């Protein structure tokens, strides 16, 4: 019988999974189990069923595999349950959501210092794990989205900011007012804390200054045209909502769109503590949490969702 390439591939995979069983069991039942699995695949393929059947089939197979390998290896029930829980936890936290704490006030107004949030890693096309985009719904990053992304300066650090420019957009600022493609943006989410005008910050782009990093200097050298920054392909221009106090694309340049981790999903805990406590671990913070958990937790922020909002 001629099997499709897919059936042959999954049968190979299953053959490899059989190494999870103890040697004795494997040697005795290997051939029969492979026949069984292949027959099941052929039957499903003959029925020409939808993709959800294949998804339930693979989930069933995984459950069967986990349950029976542990059983054949005589792992106690208690350990089995915890092992499965731990595996699920690792799977979910590495590919689907991740917990972050926001250390700086660059989004102040919408996101506060000390907001602990879960980030949805599969919602965007360029999210952290790309395989999921084949199965799960996802969309492109749009202007106005709040996104979590790796800092171009320090890949180990995750930032949360708002997307202001997508590839092709022309951006400039005039007295704190963002002008995109020649249009003034009405940004209800933006916040201004200092009345003074800083030429670099508020009449961007001018010329690199002290705080401009290498990425920012490159942007100035290559992507400024007629007093406007033009966002190149596969890059995003990010700004914090706290406009007067935000180190963002104005300073470090564009964020590559594949640095996007995901979108903030829910704030599960918000604790009022200074930036320094979240940047560097210290014992005083632990003590602070222990003593003032109830009074310093911003209860009203719990389980809220930082809204994406398009500028008018």
């Amino acid at each position, binding site marked *: 019988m001629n099997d499709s390439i897919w059936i042959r591939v999954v049968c190979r995979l299953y053959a490899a999974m059989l190494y999870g069983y103890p040697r004795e069991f494997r040697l005795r039942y290997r051939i029969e189990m492979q026949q*069984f699995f292949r027959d099941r695949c052929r039957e499903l393929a003959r029925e020409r069923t939808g993709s959800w059947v294949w998804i339930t089939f693979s989930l069933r197979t995984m459950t069967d595999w986990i349950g029976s390998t542990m059983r054949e290896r005589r792992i106690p029930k208690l350990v089995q349950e915890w092992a499965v829980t731990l595996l699920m936890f690792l799977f979910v936290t590495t590919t689907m959501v991740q917990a972050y704490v926001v250390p700086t006030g660059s989004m102040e107004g919408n996101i506060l210092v000390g907001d602990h949030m879960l980030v949805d890693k599969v919602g965007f096309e360029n999210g952290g794990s790309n395989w999921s985009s084949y199965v799960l719904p996802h969309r492109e990053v749009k202007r106005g989205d709040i996104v979590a992304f790796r800092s171009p300066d320090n890949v180990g650090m995750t930032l949360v900011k708002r997307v202001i420019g997508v590839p092709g957009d022309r951006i400039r600022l005039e007295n704190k007012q963002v002008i995109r493609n020649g249009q003034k943006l009405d940004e209800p989410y933006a916040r201004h804390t200092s009345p003074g005008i800083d030429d670099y910050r508020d009449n961007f782009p001018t010329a690199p200054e002290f705080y401009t990093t290498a990425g920012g200097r490159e942007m100035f050298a290559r992507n400024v045209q007629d007093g406007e920054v033009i966002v190149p392909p596969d890059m995003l221009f990010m700004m914090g909502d706290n406009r007067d106090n935000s180190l963002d694309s104005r300073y470090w340049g564009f964020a590559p769109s594949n640095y996007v981790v995901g979108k903030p999903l829910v704030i599960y805990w918000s604790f009022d503590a200074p930036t320094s406590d979240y940047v560097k671990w210290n014992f005083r913070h632990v003590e602070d949490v222990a003593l003032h958990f109830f009074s310093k937790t911003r209860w009203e922020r719990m389980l809220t969702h930082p809204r994406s909002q398009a500028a008018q």
Partner: protein
Amino acid sequence: MEMPEVRPSPDATAKIIVIDRTAGSAYYIRSGYNMKKPPDLLPLTPPVFHILLALADEERHGYGIMQDVARQTNGALQLGPGTLYGCLKRMLAAGLVEESEEGPDPELDDERRRYYRMTPLGRNTVRAEASRLAGAVSAAKVKLGLAGGK
């Protein structure tokens, strides 16, 4: 699934064969296993019960057993390969089923497959389990007021 435990009765004079020592506690069955009392193995877990039912009318290979179990339960119980062969291994050790010859399945293809067949002990056991379940069901009917087609 719980391990079906088969212990020799105290008056056992028949020859004892150690079938499977891998099971943590070793299983023993008597050479004349059809004399074994089925109640020792009860209650059966759902997979074991349905596998025995699948083998009640004819001998089948693994995939055939799975298909028949799915039919019996209207698709509620879909045995995966690991569960099925794990059960078969323990049922072989307990003497509920035995391996039959290998041969091709005329419907699927001409590949050789191993067939399984129920032993007399298996038949007695599944009968005993069925009547045990029937007893439980009728007790439930009485308690829940479902009896007598009211």
